[in-house]
């Protein structure tokens, strides 16, 4: 039983991270209707920027993290400005292919800057606590709490503030929003800034729990994207639920399956959801779909 409890804890921790990344995908999809393949790389960038500020520059983890978040948010805004905005009226394929390009670009840049090796913050391992036979470390508690707190804040921002209202309007219809005087370019920039900031937080949390390497963004990105689709892409609440769901299912899955298949579980779920319920758990109907 303790193994199941441990897998459940591991699933919650992974899920908290997936949820943070998944909202980035879902918010961008909400306003621009395309998959930002490069989003996973911002997770990696968050971890490495924080690492550089904290360890070689000796700022300490917390100040480094507080500096890294706006920096990565800024990178996200620059990417949108330089690579995606010129393509807003281009064919559907163009932004997707560009996003793949940005992703490779950031990843190889990171390898050139930081080297391909695996790094960590080398935090002294803290003593874990026992819950129902599962060991939980303080970092794991921090991950789950941070994730839930930030999700709550994001929810308030989107539902209660003026910018949140503008975001929802832009997601409903970019044209209509701009007609009624909403500065949609500014709204989109904010969406990228927020999504990238959350990705940065996720990256730092992953690096604290495990370690970091320049290629870490790909797999995290795909799993978080799966979470966004499971929850219904474009739906922020869905991304949160989907994140925790994927984390838990993936970890419970290796209870019965060889561990080598762990990373394929998310893909199988993704294909299953796409085939049987492409709108996800909370998604609305997609209007532009060409039906047979």
């Amino acid at each position, binding site marked *: 039983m303790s193994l199941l409890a441990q897998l459940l804890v591991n699933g919650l921790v992974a899920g908290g991270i997936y949820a943070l990344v998944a909202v980035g995908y879902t918010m961008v999809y909400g306003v621009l209707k*395309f*998959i930002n393949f490069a989003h996973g790389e911002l997770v990696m960038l968050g971890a490495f920027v924080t690492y550089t500020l904290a360890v070689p520059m000796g700022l300490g983890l917390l100040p480094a993290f507080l500096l890294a978040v706006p920096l990565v948010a800024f990178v996200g805004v620059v990417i949108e400005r*330089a*690579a995606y905005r*010129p*393509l807003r009226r*281009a*064919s*559907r*394929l*163009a*932004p*997707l*292919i*560009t996003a*793949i*390009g*940005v*992703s*490779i*670009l*950031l*990843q*190889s*840049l990171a*390898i*050139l800057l930081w*080297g*391909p090796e695996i790094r960590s913050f080398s935090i002294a391992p803290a003593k874990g606590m026992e819950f129902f036979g599962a060991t939980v470390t303080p970092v794991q508690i921090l991950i789950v709490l941070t994730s839930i707190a930030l999700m709550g804040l994001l929810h308030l921002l989107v539902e209660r503030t003026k910018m949140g209202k503008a975001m929802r309007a832009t997601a409903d219809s970019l044209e209509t929003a701009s007609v009624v005087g909403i500065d949609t370019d500014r709204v989109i920039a904010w969406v990228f800034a927020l999504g990238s900031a959350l990705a940065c937080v996720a990256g730092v949390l992953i690096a604290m729990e495990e370690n970091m390497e320049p290629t870490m963004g*790909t797999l995290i990105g*795909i799993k978080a*994207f799966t979470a966004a*689709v499971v929850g219904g892409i474009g739906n922020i609440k869905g991304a949160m639920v989907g994140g925790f769901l994927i984390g838990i299912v993936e970890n419970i899955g290796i209870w019965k399956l*060889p561990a*080598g*298949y762990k*990373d*394929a579980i998310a*893909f*199988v779920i*993704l*294909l299953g959801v*796409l*085939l049987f319920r*492409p709108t996800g758990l909370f998604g609305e109907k*997609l209007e*532009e*779909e*060409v039906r*047979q």
Partner: protein
Amino acid sequence: MAYVTNILVMACIYGVLAMSLNLTVGLTGLLNLGHAAFFAIGAYTSALLALAGVPFYASLAAGALAAGAAGYLIGIPTLKLRGDYLAIATLGFAEITRVVLKNWTPVTGGPMGLPGIPRASLLGFRLQTPEAFLALSLAILLLTYLVLQRLVASPFGRVLRGIRDDELAVLALGKETMAFKLRALALGSLLAGMAGALFAHYITFIHPSSFTIGEGILILCMVVLGGMGSNLGAMLGAFILVALPESLRLLGLPWAVAGPLRQLFFGLILVVLMVRRPSGLLGGD
């Protein structure tokens, strides 16, 4: 000389791959990110058959057919999805294929792969030298080009281009777009499988890390660079991107720098071309 021959053989194999991907991405507008999987299925099928003693031409055909069948089967559920979802679904398929190849050790040899694949032999001649294999690869490249050119100009090709530009309109004209998309994907996969079989018999040793998602994206780079929709462009893109890393090697950069630099360049190609010149080098239409 053997060095140049080797580059040319690889350029031919990637030329076939790029043209096969161009059929789905460039011509039909279906963003297929899982092309490496069909390449892998062709390579592994033909390698396993060849290791069991099946002659080259039969294992080549079987590899192509297996990949084509896989493309058809994957297409039935996924082609109903819209552009972005199709991209992700094919990406997922490629990753699952790679994970299975890596873990299904009794059949695929797991991470160690399949060594000792017999070299190609045709009509009683064993293609032992790289030059002989180059002649075969060139012949297959040329044949693929001619067949695809013919296909682009045919009414079938016209419907595919129609689907790319406006699927709803083609549907309104009474064309079963789903059936056309399915055939385009199956044919593209079949050609990729053929390239995979060729690759397996040339390299004689295949393993899962030759067929990563990155490989699929490299092929996409070739298509985008050459110009989406143009077969000649796809071939040109393949030749440039196969030759380019070699020229980086001539600069004498250490591999730890040259590898990521090459990737950086691929990323730049995709972004800059899409933003500045979406039609690539030779794409006109």
